[in-house]
């Protein structure tokens, strides 16, 4: 059995020297969050809203730390204006975004922001790749980390519900 994508992504965080991981929790990220929590060299910062994570990343970068922001697609909308700081100051950040409102969604409230997440990010200058198969998550994350920290701009990986498994109303 192959290992879960969270293991590979966590290994990349360590390889790339990520020091701060901020998040608003999402079920799709729960394994990765546990791995980060258990690592004494990573600072895990829980946020009240995703836009705090963008600002936190600015401070982290000013202080010499690379950081990653974990969120659900509904949080993308909360970040829009704050993303301007990354553009103006050429600050790198990698965002891993677990999708709702795409393949097989049951909750109508998730669909508008889920469907708009990619275009909203791109409109604010974020480089976006979307993983629709489990095997894509780790290489896409590696690519996002590289392009973010080598070219000083934000990059996001959307992790689709086909990878995560769609939630059902009964869960």
């Amino acid at each position, binding site marked *: 059995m192959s290992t879960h994508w969270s293991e590979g992504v966590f290994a990349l965080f360590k390889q790339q020297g990520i020091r701060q991981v901020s998040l608003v929790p999402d079920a799709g990220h729960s394994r990765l969050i546990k791995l980060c929590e258990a690592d004494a060299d990573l600072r895990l910062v829980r*946020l009240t*809203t995703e836009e705090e994570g963008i600002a936190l990343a*600015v401070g982290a970068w000013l202080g010499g730390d690379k950081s990653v922001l974990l969120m659900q697609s509904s949080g993308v909308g909360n970040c829009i*204006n*704050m993303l*301007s700081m990354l553009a103006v100051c050429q600050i790198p950040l990698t965002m891993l975004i677990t999708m709702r409102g795409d393949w097989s969604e049951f909750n109508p409230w998730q669909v508008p922001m889920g469907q708009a997440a990619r275009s909203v990010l791109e409109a604010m200058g974020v480089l976006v790749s979307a993983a629709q198969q489990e095997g894509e998550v780790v290489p896409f994350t590696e690519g996002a980390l590289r392009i973010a920290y080598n070219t000083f701009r934000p990059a996001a990986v959307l992790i689709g519900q086909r990878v995560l498994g769609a939630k059902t109303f009964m869960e």
Partner: protein
Amino acid sequence: MAIDSSTRLDRREVVKALLRERGEMLVIAGLGAPSWDAAAAGDVPLNFPLWGGMGGAVAIGLGLAIAQPKRPVLVLTGDGELLMGLGSLATVGVYKPANLSIVVLDNERYGETGMQNSHTAAGGVNLAAVAVACGMERSSLVTRMDQVGALCKDLHSMQ
């Protein structure tokens, strides 16, 4: 609370006093007049003045304080800027980095847009009390210049 106008704090003087003996203190200055206040006290590379990203100053300070735990970090911002990111006080209250201080220049107004009232106006939201409720027990309200010295001492005590 009514404040006697003859003893009203002058923001430029307050910030000058706070930064006079700053040493290696890193300063994040929030969108609006706090950025001008910080620059007027000395345009130095240890300042990061914001001209956007409203509501983000405190969270920037938190990320910086975590990244540079041995250096004092001061977030200098206004009431309107803080009110837009009030949740970040809750986040700071949970992590409580010992090297992070927050000073809010609370003029009860949105100064950049025509001095419209903010929620702190006329006995409204008490930001010092909010900070205490978020876990920052050492929060206090300064209304007179003769209290600024003690605040300065407090800010620099971590150096």
